[in-house]
């Protein structure tokens, strides 16, 4: 199955794949950000592969000068009982990533969460609002430079 996925992806999206790695039988593929929707569409609708379930989507902050953020897509194929991880790298200067809500609608809330926690903006998302923090909150709390105890005064309390 692994070889099949890799082969199919390299034939169709040769230029989009930046890196592949394998750890304990788990396949991870880093792809170009602008091609993520096309690749997901392909993986989801291909009769043989059928990655029809997006198990998780999340952001990561590596806190490095280049490509500071990553968005991780954990896919699962119910038909083949196979898992695949896709990653895209996001630079701090350009926080836009195309949304995959058109492929799996479950991405809706996951992308809202990644937006809420890291400030990654998903283009084409139908309703990109904060997920957990209040609407008026101005920071992205899971970024590594956000202090653990928060920023005093950034969250309001009711009057006593």
């Amino acid at each position, binding site marked *: 199955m692994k070889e099949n996925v890799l082969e199919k992806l390299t034939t169709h999206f040769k230029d989009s794949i930046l890196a592949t790695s394998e750890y304990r039988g788990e396949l991870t593929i880093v792809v170009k950000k602008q091609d993520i929707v096309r690749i997901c569409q392909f993986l989801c609708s291909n009769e043989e592969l059928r990655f029809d379930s997006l198990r998780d989507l999340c952001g990561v902050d590596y806190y490095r000068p280049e490509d500071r953020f990553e968005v991780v897509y954990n896919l699962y194929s119910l038909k083949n009982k196979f898992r695949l991880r896709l990653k895209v790298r996001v630079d701090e200067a350009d926080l836009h990533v195309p949304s995959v809500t058109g492929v799996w609608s479950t991405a809706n809330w996951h992308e809202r969460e990644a937006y809420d926690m890291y400030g990654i903006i998903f283009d084409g998302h139908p309703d990109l609002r904060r997920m957990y923090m209040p609407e008026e909150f101005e920071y992205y709390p899971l970024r590594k430079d956000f*202090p653990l105890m*928060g920023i005093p005064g950034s969250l309001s309390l009711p009057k006593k």
Partner: protein
Amino acid sequence: MGLEFTKDSFLITRVDEIIKWARKNSLWPMPMGISCCAIEMMAFAGPRFDVSRFGSEAFRFSPRQSDLMIVAGTVTYKMAHVVRKIYDQMPDPKWVIAMGACTSSGGMYRSYPVVQGIDLFVPVDVYVAGCPPRPDNLLKGLMEIQKKIERGEKPGQREKVYVAESTMV
């Protein structure tokens, strides 16, 4: 002067004494169960610990029918507004128990979204220690509230009571 019983099944008292007595034995809790502590709060209402012995078995899910708010769980900044709104809707006189470490002080959640103690935005009468407190400890907290009512404490001039962690196993 408290309640005095006479031979002939008469009761001599003052109006405010009997009101206090009635209030104290019919506290209706508002179960503000926000997270895991609420499970112990359910046990406190259930048959084993049986809060109806103290007249408080009528948990009311409407703040307008309750006079004791048991805040059981982690209060986030987002939830704080809801807790305060519910507190404001309760009729006077009203009492608040901060149940558990989270509610009293933020507990193990020493981080940005959790309010570090609900006394930052509502007045608290009794703090119950534990993570979660045992139901019998919450009963102790309820008895402390009853004592406060008996002493005739008024909202605003309250003495805070801390219930230590129970040693019963």
